[in-house]
């Protein structure tokens, strides 16, 4: 037990130092730098898709394939939960 406790503290210390160093070295909040793809999407959403909502146009039109993958994950989770509580008929 003492050995496992020591390794747990060591692992947590390493990850904590890494995360805090990352938080202090990030770019300043509010300047994401060069964003060419997003600027193109903001300029051409109304002309190309005909929707007034930028986020919905990205989710269903520019990146519809990711939404297909997410619908599959939701279906798999529901199938797994219903399968886990099945009653076998006697």
């Amino acid at each position, binding site marked *: 037990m003492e050995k496992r406790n020591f390794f*747990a503290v060591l692992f947590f210390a390493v990850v904590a130092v890494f995360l805090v160093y990352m938080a202090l070295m990030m770019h300043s*909040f509010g300047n994401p730098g060069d964003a060419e793809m997003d600027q193109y999407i903001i300029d051409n959403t109304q002309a190309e898709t005909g929707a007034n909502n930028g986020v919905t146009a990205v989710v269903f039109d520019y990146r519809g394939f990711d939404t297909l993958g997410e619908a599959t994950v939701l279906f798999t989770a529901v199938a797994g939960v219903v399968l886990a509580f099945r009653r076998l008929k006697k």
Partner: protein
Amino acid sequence: MITFNIPFIAVVGLILVGLITVVFKRNLIKIVIGITLIESGVNLFLITLGYRQGSIAPIYSSSPGGIMSLPVPQALTLTSIVIGVAVLALMVSFIIHIYKLYGTLDASKIRGDEE
């Protein structure tokens, strides 16, 4: 250079609290709560990456003029939230089965550690 931004420090705080709960606690339900905290921290990090200074939401109907924030990180966060819900549902259903089989919710007793 060292910048002092509050949103990124809040993200790291959330992830560290979740990590403490996953590594050092023994009750199974507390471990699941820690996993949910880590996922919330990561979703917050995705959203704060796409903010422009003084911008409005990317909606075009009757919007006041101005620059708009980036819409792609918000779309990816939507997917991540739904996947978090799906994983949480599966974990809780397995905890119910473990409790019926072993009679206890202590992770070290289920694993069979000696005292």
